[in-house]
């Protein structure tokens, strides 16, 4: 039982990070119809700047996080303005490919900055843990989980009650009609990338806490958020969260049990699980669990 709970905690910690990434991705996809493959880059860009401000310069951690989120949001806005807006009207496929190019370019630069040594982000949680019965939980995992829940609830409320949230949904539903109501669709696009960037930075910071730290391979975490989004269904906020939970937990349980239960699957099998789950879900539900059927796929 303890082992099971321990595995669940591990799964939830992964799920929290996937959810933060997936929510930004879904926001962008929902409003602009662009699949942002630039998310790994946004994530490490954000994490690097938290590390730079908090560790290299020695600023307060929370201030560093705020600055890094703002910078990554800005990077998102720049990507939208300079790279994607001139492409409006071009095939969505080209836009998606363009974000892959941007991702690689930005990551090369950021990885160069990160260097070969493991970097910390100067977070206040360190390696401290809390014991709940027999289960040991890292405080950083608690922080991640609470953040993911708060961000999800905030986004749901934002879409439901705020004027801008409603305008984003309207833009997603019918761009021409949104324009006709006086909504500035360009502003909505920029906003989606700003949110997506800020959330990616937050996820990047969390990925870089604890023993993993920030390294030139940190970006791979974002690749596993992709299955979470696809499982949830690309254009649904609920879907992003549910997808993140499914993928995170599946990965958590396999990494705990597979080594003893099915050792013949190899030592890093849990890394493959997200993609496997994605394949299985797609075979049953091609549009994901919560996706809109008309949603175009690239």
């Amino acid at each position, binding site marked *: 039982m303890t082992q099971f709970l321990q595995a669940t905690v591990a799964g939830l910690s992964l799920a929290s990070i996937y959810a933060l990434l997936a929510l930004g991705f879904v926001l962008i996809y929902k409003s602009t119809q662009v699949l942002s493959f630039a998310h790994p880059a946004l994530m490490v860009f954000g994490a690097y700047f938290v590390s730079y401000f908090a560790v290299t310069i020695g600023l307060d951690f929370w201030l560093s996080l705020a600055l890094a989120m703002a910078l990554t949001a800005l990077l998102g806005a720049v990507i939208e303005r300079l790279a994607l807006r001139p492409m409006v009207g071009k095939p969505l496929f080209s836009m998606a490919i363009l974000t892959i190019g941007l991702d690689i370019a930005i990551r090369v630069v950021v990885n160069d900055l990160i260097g070969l040594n493991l970097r910390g982000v100067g977070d206040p949680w360190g390696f401290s843990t809390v014991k709940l019965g027999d289960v040991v939980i890292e405080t950083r995992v608690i922080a991640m989980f609470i953040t993911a829940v708060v961000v999800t609830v905030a986004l749901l409320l934002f879409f439901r009650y705020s*004027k801008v949230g409603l*305008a984003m949904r*309207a833009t997603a*539903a*019918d761009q021409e009609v949104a*324009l*006709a*109501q*006086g*909504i500035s669709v360009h502003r909505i696009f920029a906003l989606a990338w700003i949110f997506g960037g800020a959330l990616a930075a937050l996820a990047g910071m969390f990925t870089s806490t604890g023993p993993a730290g920030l390294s030139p391979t940190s970006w791979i975490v974002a690749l596993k958020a992709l299955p979470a989004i696809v499982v949830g269904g690309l254009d649904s906020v609920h879907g992003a969260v549910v997808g993140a939970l499914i993928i995170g937990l599946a990965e958590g349980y396999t990494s705990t049990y597979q080594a003893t239960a099915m050792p013949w699957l190899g030592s890093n099998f849990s890394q493959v699980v997200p993609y496997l789950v994605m394949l299985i879900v797609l075979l049953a539900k091609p549009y994901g669990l919560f996706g809109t059927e008309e949603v175009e796929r690239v």
Partner: protein
Amino acid sequence: MLEVANLEVVYHDVILVLRGISFTVPEGEIVALLGANGAGKTTVLRAISGLLDVHNGDITKGEIKVDGEPTHKLDPAAIVKRGVVQVMEGRRIFAEFTVEENLRVGAHTAGGNIEATMAGIFDLFPILEERRRQLAGFLSGGEQQMLAMGRALMSKPKYLLLDEPSLGLAPLLVQQIRDVIVEINTRGTGILLVEQNAAMALSIASHGYIMETGKIVMDKPAVELAQDEDVREFYLGLHATGGERKSFRDVKHYKRRKRWLS
């Protein structure tokens, strides 16, 4: 006053659809814009509300002014803020939103008290208040048309552009929409009414324009248009004599010659 002067519009850089259209909608009046399918009526409305971009269309000549200020270079958001809003053909409500959310989207540019504006809309369309929390997709066709009009009115426009509001509605509902248009107008909004249902449009408009393949071919006070022999034959389906149907343009040509001769 909403003024359109010498407007020329091209789609995809090559398809010339409007060839020098001019007309005006005086403040607080209803003006009808009639014409057969494909004449270019919707294109005129898109040009006014700044929605040509979406369709790869461009204004290549001419001018549009709202109360003296040119607006043809503005984006749709700025045009809505100047008090001109379009209700698109086919209603185009947000089906997955509630009725109230639809109305709130319409208020995007409006400052001030949204609740008060919404109360005014509910006063005009009581059915929308009853259905307030329902998904708009479940409304009937007539109710959806009302919602589309209500949504546009949430921006408190000075000029409302209506694209075939009676399309696909039963006669009784057409009556109802007609009465609502009159009511909106008496509350002080100028209306440009594009219609296939010429009888309905001319019965409430003060002035009417008739378009054919991108040109205005006739323009008269609505009462006179409704009396005009050719309009009666071609747009009201009232045949004075049971002759062959000719193109409206031929008649016009013939009339013009007749005028020259006399």
